[in-house]
């Protein structure tokens, strides 16, 4: 399967039809494995990396799950193609920097991606839409067992699977869910939630700039520890915590609708206005505003049919996806202009936000005036 087919079709998880996908964008489980008798990639000579690659790649390609896979050497991917894969979470940034001696194998549905010679000889991940950690784990666990029959994995009786970085030793597993938590952010409860989650040994990450705001109100919840617990225990714990956070986010949404309907509508309305009428937009601003639009769809302020458009913009306004849509090389300024123009085009038909039931503090709504514009 040629690479442009992968790049031009969006993966299963981007369709956002998994359970709880209003709040949980995606679930990912990654396993790290290494081969016995070879130095880890970071410490290996080029010839050693190549022999590891030539040993692993055919084994991966012969998996039944990879019957319709795209398999490509890192040096055969352009910088832009790699960046697109990074934005889709199919390869890591670290892997994108690799050349000769590395490769990636992805299935057609883009639910599985196997990086060869990243930081470890093998980094295998399954990614699903919504809250599907268990099924993502099952998928990657099967792949791991099949590969373990063909390859001699480095395994220690006490420490389990050995990895280049001791933070991954044991299960070699990092499971995570990307969550969209705008109401917890708006109602200033997100820090409490983060602290509670940290207390049970899980990590929460948004990207903290100067403030406490995460980009696009997106947070990643993942396990911190990999040694001393069974995989299933880690997944179950993570799952429970995520379900709790979903509950809190839903409560925060309901409270905002009841107690601060004007603030809520104002935030969504401003996001709508800026996205529809701006002519230059940086990717961070786009993410933050799109987050409010997504919240608006969740709350029924926009028609449900618009969900896909909004969700797709999250990824299509990322730098490499923008660059891919045009032939000439864009400067940052041009990119911001193109981003604004794509967003304007996509949202042209989006009606102005309106609460499902008329907002109590407002004079009787005149939906006709708003819809015409």
């Amino acid at each position, binding site marked *: 399967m040629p690479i442009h087919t992968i790049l031009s079709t969006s993966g299963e998880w981007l369709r956002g039809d998994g359970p709880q996908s209003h709040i949980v964008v995606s679930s990912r489980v990654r396993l790290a494995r290494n081969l016995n*008798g070879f*130095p*880890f990639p*970071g*410490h290996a000579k080029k010839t050693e990396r190549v022999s590891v690659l030539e040993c692993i790649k055919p084994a991966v390609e012969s998996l039944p799950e990879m019957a319709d896979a795209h398999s490509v050497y890192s040096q055969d991917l352009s910088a832009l193609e790699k960046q697109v894969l*990074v934005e889709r*979470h199919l390869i*890591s*940034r*670290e892997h994108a920097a690799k050349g000769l001696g590395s490769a990636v194998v992805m299935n057609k549905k883009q639910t599985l991606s196997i990086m060869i010679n990243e*930081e470890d000889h093998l980094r295998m991940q399954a990614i699903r839409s919504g809250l599907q950690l268990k099924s993502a784990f099952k998928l990657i*666990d099967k792949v791991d*067992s099949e590969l*373990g*029959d063909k390859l001699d994995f*480095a*395994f*220690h*009786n*006490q*420490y*389990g*699977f*050995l990895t*280049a*970085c*001791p*933070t*991954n*030793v*044991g*299960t070699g*597993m*990092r499971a*995570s869910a*990307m969550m969209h938590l705008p109401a917890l952010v708006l109602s200033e409860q997100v820090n409490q939630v*983060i*602290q509670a989650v*940290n*207390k049970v*040994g899980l*990590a*929460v*990450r948004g*990207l*903290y700039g100067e403030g406490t705001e*995460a*980009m*696009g109100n*997106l947070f*990643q919840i*993942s396990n*911190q*520890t*990999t*040694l*001393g*617990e*069974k*995989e299933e225990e880690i997944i179950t714990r993570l799952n429970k915590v995520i379900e709790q956070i979903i509950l809190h986010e839903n409560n925060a949404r309901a409270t905002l609708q009841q107690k601060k309907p004007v603030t809520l509508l104002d935030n969504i309305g401003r996001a709508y206005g800026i996205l529809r009428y701006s002519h230059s937009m940086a990717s961070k601003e786009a993410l933050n505003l799109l987050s409010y639009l997504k919240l608006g769809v969740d709350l029924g302020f926009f028609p449900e049919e618009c969900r896909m458009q909004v969700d797709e913009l999250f990824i299509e306004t990322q730098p490499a996806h923008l660059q891919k849509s045009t032939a000439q090389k864009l400067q940052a300024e041009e990119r911001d202009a193109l981003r604004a123009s794509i967003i304007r085009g996509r949202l042209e038909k989006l009606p102005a936000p309106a609460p499902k039931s008329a907002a109590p503090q407002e004079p009787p709504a005149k939906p006709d005036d708003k819809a015409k514009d």
Partner: protein
Amino acid sequence: MNCDVCKQKPATVFLTQIVDGKMQKVNLCEACSKEKGVTDPTGFALADLLLGLGASQEMEKSTVGARCPACGFSHADFKKTGRFGCAACYDTFADGLENMLKGMHKGLEHRGKVPPRLLKAKLRDEEMKKLQRELRKAVADEKYEAAAELRDRIRNLENEAHTAS
């Protein structure tokens, strides 16, 4: 302020993350932040980076001067990268490792998946330990008939292990 990773260029990217209820700060230069992928909020790189930086400091206390016979990795190499050179490094640096893993993980013993091809050997290993315990007890209790039977079973397991490997 210099970059925490390369310790050379001035830091321009400042990140904070809450780990275990504690705020952790990392200061990075432009180049290192790009390379580590920490500007991507959805990547795993930030957690690995934060945990990794702490890890190499833990190791400082012991195994200075050790060098891995399999891959030539030294203690200084680990300090620099927070990564090991090969699987054998886990035994080479075992002394410093325990301390570091204790702070990092839930336990010091892997309790998860065992590769199918090793599972048999592991089960046999556990069975062997159990039988040996029972044998010692039988001898201590002067139950010689039981002890003889246990000895036979241990011998059978040993033979099995030999033919398997």
